[in-house]
């Protein structure tokens, strides 16, 4: 039967195929594999977009119509979508398909996780009163575009560190890691990606604050989720400023891009599963 979960299932497989193609390109330097990777990634995004639209439609058929952005499952699916789109745009702009070998597995693993975790509520459920707000939609969209970019930045950070390892160990140009883009290019891409993510994260925190103020009369209450989002924001602000001071070379920025994403991850998962707070709706 054609429903949104079925489409997300197909999407997962196509992301896997795209990842395999990119990895094949990384290992064998076969240009056709890279082209296949991009084609598959775009195909997966199209299917996923249809799936998201369909899920939205399904919610209206159940008479509780709302954008598919309101629980953990839906937000993971949306995150995978954002990361994949961000990556494809990055590849089209900068033409470095090797990065796909490190980044394309992110949407694949995310979607695979949503189908494996049995505790993740996948049904479309009605919204409790506090969640019925357009600010919530704006909040989730802006945050997840940012998270998608930060995921890609962390992938780039790892590539940077591997490349650096290859350079310092003087691996030959023939070796696997010799295929990776050069450090300057990577550093520039990490910076650009973080800038993009930072813009959206800031917008995400702001829309969240406005929503909280409309619903509860406090724009900031230091609940664990809010606090972790500001911690993430501080880490990326630090990363941006670290560039101005000498001594903070590319590898530290690369580490920070990884640390930043760990913080994103914690904001997203850790808070729901390990700590208590207002946003615990995501855990249901």
């Amino acid at each position: 039967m054609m429903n949104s979960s079925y489409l997300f299932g197909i999407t997962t497989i196509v992301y896997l195929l795209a990842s395999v193609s990119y990895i094949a390109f990384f290992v064998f330097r076969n240009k056709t594999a890279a082209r296949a990777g991009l084609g598959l990634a775009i195909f997966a995004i199209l299917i996923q977009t249809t799936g998201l639209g369909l899920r939205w439609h399904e919610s209206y058929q159940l008479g509780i119509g709302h954008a598919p952005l309101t629980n953990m499952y839906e937000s993971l699916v949306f995150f995978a979508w954002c990361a994949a789109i961000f990556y494809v745009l990055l590849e089209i702009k900068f033409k470095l398909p090797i990065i796909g070998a490190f980044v394309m597995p992110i949407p694949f693993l995310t979607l695979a996780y949503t189908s494996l975790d049995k505790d993740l509520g996948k049904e479309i459920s009605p919204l409790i009163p506090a969640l019925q707000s357009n600010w919530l939609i704006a909040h989730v969209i802006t945050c997840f575009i940012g998270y998608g970019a930060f995921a890609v930045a962390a992938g780039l950070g790892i590539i940077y560190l591997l490349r650096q390892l290859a350079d310092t160990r003087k691996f030959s140009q023939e070796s696997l890691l010799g295929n990776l883009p050069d450090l300057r290019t990577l550093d520039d891409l990490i910076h650009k990606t973080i800038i993009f993510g930072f813009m959206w994260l800031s917008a995400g925190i702001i829309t969240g604050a406005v929503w909280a103020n409309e619903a509860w009369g406090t724009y900031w209450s230091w609940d664990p989720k809010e606090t972790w989002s500001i911690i993430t924001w501080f880490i990326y602000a630090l990363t941006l400023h670290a560039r101005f001071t000498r001594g903070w070379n590319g590898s530290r920025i690369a580490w920070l891009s990884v640390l930043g994403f760990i913080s994103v991850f914690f904001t997203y998962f850790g808070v729901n599963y390990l700590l208590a707070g207002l946003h615990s709706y995501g855990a249901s």
Partner: protein
Amino acid sequence: MAAKAKNPVWAFLASVHLALLLLGLLASTSIIGTIIQQNKPAEHYVQTWGPAKAKIIQSLNLADMYNSGWFLCLLGAFSLNLAICSIDRLPGVVRVVRMDNLTRDPEQLLKMKLQHQVQVNDSHEAVSKLATAWLTRKGWKAASRNKENGLLLFAQKGAWTRYGVYAVHISILTILLGAIIGSPTVAEKILHNPQFAFKGGVLLPEQRSTNRIFSYDEEEHSLPLGFTVRCNFFDIDFYDNGMPKEFVSGLTILEGDKEILTKEIEVNKPLKYKGVTFYQSSYNDMRKPVIRLKNVSTGQRTLLPFNSEATTAWQNGAEQGMLRIQDIREIPSANGGGAEFDIWFMDSQGPPSTFTVRYNTPVLVERPTAKYEVKISSQYATGLQVSKDPGVWWVYSGCALMLLGLYTAFFMSHRKIWAYVHEENGQAKVAFIGQANKNSLGFAKTFARLTEGFGKEHT
């Protein structure tokens, strides 16, 4: 910036190194408050963390760490760093924005990376005119100055974008200022005027009104509102699966006896009056029956006291009528039983209606000119969160400024184009030189299109 020897304390306070340190400290210490639950009673910490750790938690104020002295000091130091850094750098930026770019030595400019030379078979003066006209046509309004061996033209775009970073920095200070202005603690301890900014709540039974609310900071403290608020009704709407769909309260604001404003509030749809905002936050069952009339066509609701002894006359605006409970019967049922009531009811039109209504189950009553929903159920009290935050507009303005500033700082650039018109071997020659402070690749493309276009048109 360069000439004046800097005071070392100032230099330290203005440094990005300090900023990195403070951002790192803020990020890492903030974690503590997400692990140790905040604002719990003292016993909670002893139970969760043991007496030794509970002592540390208490002495470092970790149970309310985001309001603790040391954390506020950290935020203060951060603001100071941000302010001083910006004050320190701003004059330099103003100078760069206002700089006279025509004083530049053409020979120096010709050493820059981004350039394109075009030879034109025409007089030097004519070519100068052509170049100026070309730049203007393409949106680059150029100024010019005579140089030793020719004429230098200059045009720029986006010089103001250099202020983008400072807009971001100022926006952070604006947001923090807004937080201070709206802080109940500041209003109470520093301004000694708790009415200036507060956060509180009130549990208001249906049909009752209040002109005071309870501040969350000092629970025993009640604050005057300066006007009266009345709860007309409270209602919960459920989804088919039993989940609450919406909480609604009908509120009326009164000044003295005069009704000023009536509004239905929901979660996410508060009522604002005179800087005070009322949010739907909870409700309470008063465990006392009331009779609810709702005119289905106008939506007008009337609450009547439950009186089994006598006839109750009711009036609500232009609507009026009478209601009597004629009989009450207990009815057994699977889930504990309930009650059934025989009602005699009329409004201003037509003969009275009689019907039976079960507890908590609405009945539709058709009258000649109106349709009523009649329900007997428990009386509710609506739980309102009430706050007054005069700083919130500072916060919102700061947020808007931050987004504009970030966009400017990240995605816009200051672009400059010089055109040096001179003669070489008796031929007029235009050397275009370009420079951008960001996105140099993108600018190089624009520059190539602009200058090659000139070459095509004039050679």
